């Protein structure tokens, strides 16, 4: 198992460079995987957070200095940002970034990189590796599913499909990225090779943050904007999300704590969407609170694995034959 660290942008890259322990003191669970061998750089969730080429080259220089490989993460993009993304990839190739890989979350980026830089190794990103990352799943039971059990496919992923892996190989993709959702993944979720490793696809697992949902409409970017440009995909953005994190407190209680899962009226569930938005300026202390919490950075919702869930994710990663990397996200990956 190889340990990797992720710096989404130049600021986090410099923090990493300046820290003697590579900030791994903030994630003590990562230390069992030994020394860092690879640097991940970039953001996979928003095209407006595309780093300039000089920042990507700075990441390549840091990686080369430390003897690491570099994995450059790209986002899903429109045509305008596809060109900019390709400029950064071209700059990294020209700078001979060490052992360069490019993570793609857009079929167009995949096609262009493959066509223009056939020597660059392609990696399927977390967005295109589809899985159920719904943070409500741990609090869902048969009472929500007409008496049915939670389906086992909620513990699977796209990479678990042999046909999908074969198709990826056809298009030059050699690796995949994965989250571990709150409900965990089943054995073989990223490819049950049945003892034939050549059929599998090497996978990197990102911990402890996982993506719930992402999109081009951004609430945080709409801050202070007039109605005509509010809640449409922004043409340009000065990234207020770089300094803003929203904590989302769920209006339901944790099922495993035995609390009532949802508001119930005469035996019938009231859809949560019928409730009013219960906005607060300060949430109760987490230790006194039975409601799950999630995080929003810009256009993307995340969950954080901690405690038993993090332990279970680590155990799963160690047992899964295709997982050969753990990527440490010291901060939210945006």
């Amino acid at each position: 198992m190889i340990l990797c660290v992720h710096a989404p942008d130049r600021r986090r890259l410099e923090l990493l460079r300046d820290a003697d322990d590579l900030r791994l003191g903030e994630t003590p669970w990562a230390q069992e995987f030994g020394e860092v061998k690879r640097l991940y750089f970039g953001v996979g969730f928003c095209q407006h957070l595309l780093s300039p080429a000089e920042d990507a080259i700075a990441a390549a220089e840091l990686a080369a200095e430390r003897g690491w490989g570099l994995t450059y993460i790209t986002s899903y993009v429109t045509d305008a940002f596809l060109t900019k993304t390709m400029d950064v990839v071209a700059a990294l190739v020209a700078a001979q970034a060490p052992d360069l890989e490019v993570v793609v979350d857009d079929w167009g980026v995949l096609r262009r990189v493959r066509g223009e830089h056939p020597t660059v190794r392609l990696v399927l990103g977390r967005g295109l590796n589809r899985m159920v990352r719904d943070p409500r799943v741990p609090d869902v039971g048969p009472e929500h599913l007409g008496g049915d059990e939670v389906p086992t496919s909620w513990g699977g992923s796209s990479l678990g499909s042999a046909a999908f892996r074969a198709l990826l190989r056809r298009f030059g993709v050699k690796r995949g990225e994965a989250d571990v959702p709150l409900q965990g993944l089943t054995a073989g979720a990223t490819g049950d090779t049945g003892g034939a490793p050549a059929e599998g696809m090497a996978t990197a697992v990102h911990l402890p943050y996982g993506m719930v949902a992402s999109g081009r409409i951004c609430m945080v970017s709409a801050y202070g904007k007039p109605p005509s440009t509010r809640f449409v995909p922004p043409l340009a953005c000065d990234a207020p999300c770089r300094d803003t994190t929203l904590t989302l407190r769920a209006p339901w209680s944790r099922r495993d704590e035995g609390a009532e899962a949802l508001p119930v009226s005469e035996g019938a569930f009231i859809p949560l969407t019928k409730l009013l938005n219960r906005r607060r300026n300060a949430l109760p202390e987490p230790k006194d609170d039975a409601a799950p919490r999630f995080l929003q950075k810009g256009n993307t919702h995340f969950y954080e694995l901690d405690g038993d869930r993090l332990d279970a994710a680590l155990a799963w990663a160690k047992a899964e034959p295709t997982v050969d990397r753990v990527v440490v996200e010291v901060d939210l990956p945006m």
Partner: protein
Amino acid sequence: MQILTPVAGPEEVEPLVSSGADELYAGIFPDSWYERFGRGAWPNRRGPGPANLRTVDQVVSLQRAAHATEDGPRAGGRSVPLYLAVNAPFYTDEQAAHLLDVLAEVHAAAPVDAFIVTDPGFMALLRERVPEAAIFASTVTVALNSEAVRFLAEDLECSRVILSRHLDLREIRTIRDTVPDVDLEVFLLNDNCYFEEGFCSTTHTMPGFGVYCMTPWEIEVRRDHDGAPISGPEERARWDFLIDEHREFIRHLGNRGHGAGPTKMPLGPCGLCGIPELMDLGIHSGKIVGREASLFRKLRSVQAVRYVRDSYGEGGGREAATEAKRRAIELRGDPAGCAAGYSCYYRPARQRDLVPLPTRPRGPRRPRRR
């Protein structure tokens, strides 16, 4: 531009087609799938219920009605193509094998005109099992740029690409200009998403919980540089306003509680004003969303799209476009909603001389940067 309409059964075909539907799409949640994988695992983007057919026989009946075959209920009527949605984000090997059996049975009994698919691995399997079947790339595949469209159309051989819901007219124009030979489909009416549908990893909707993006969160805003919650009254007021507006926006995306306007037009997301530009771009098909909706809502939606499309005509020019948009706004009967723009699929398509666009931002202004 063809009008693509959802359909839930053969009895809906005649009213929809006579109202103007040019193409139909349906979904299937087979009983055999339900028994094997349960209620929680969906074979397409809707769960068990009115949005989906349950058996191959039902698909056969629907296909006969759509194609107006001699042995069907619409013999001699206008034949329209029928597409079947099997667009779950991914399938396990076991699910894919089961679904392939069902689709092969459908194809043998009454071939539909295309399958709408997301999972590229499943596309490959389907092509292998039913080589002559046409495949459309679902919007869940996420085609945001012309290279992605090329990948889906050329490399994966999809005969149509359904574009992302959030592309604006300028971005669609870029794609159209770059890949003029690919059939493109866009969204026109009802049910928008807050997130990019292909990058939303939730279960869409869950009994008791509702739709994920409509969850009424309690929200705390923190600044990263010091980790402290925002505290100043002015800044708090600005965030309160934004959160309230965001809630209102989400309500619009969810069809404002399935409300209807004075002309009984659904008041949900709407792209009627974009029809002239989309027709000029040569977009092949415009989709009405809502397989689970009532027949009345589907009919009203088809009639509205047809009314605007026909009033613009082919290559009608600016005056015809303005007239078509004026009619769209009048038909919708919701000038305040049109002015807010939160329901617009193509917000820039609105014309200032037709819609009373707000000239000043409502709510607290953002502070000037020093």
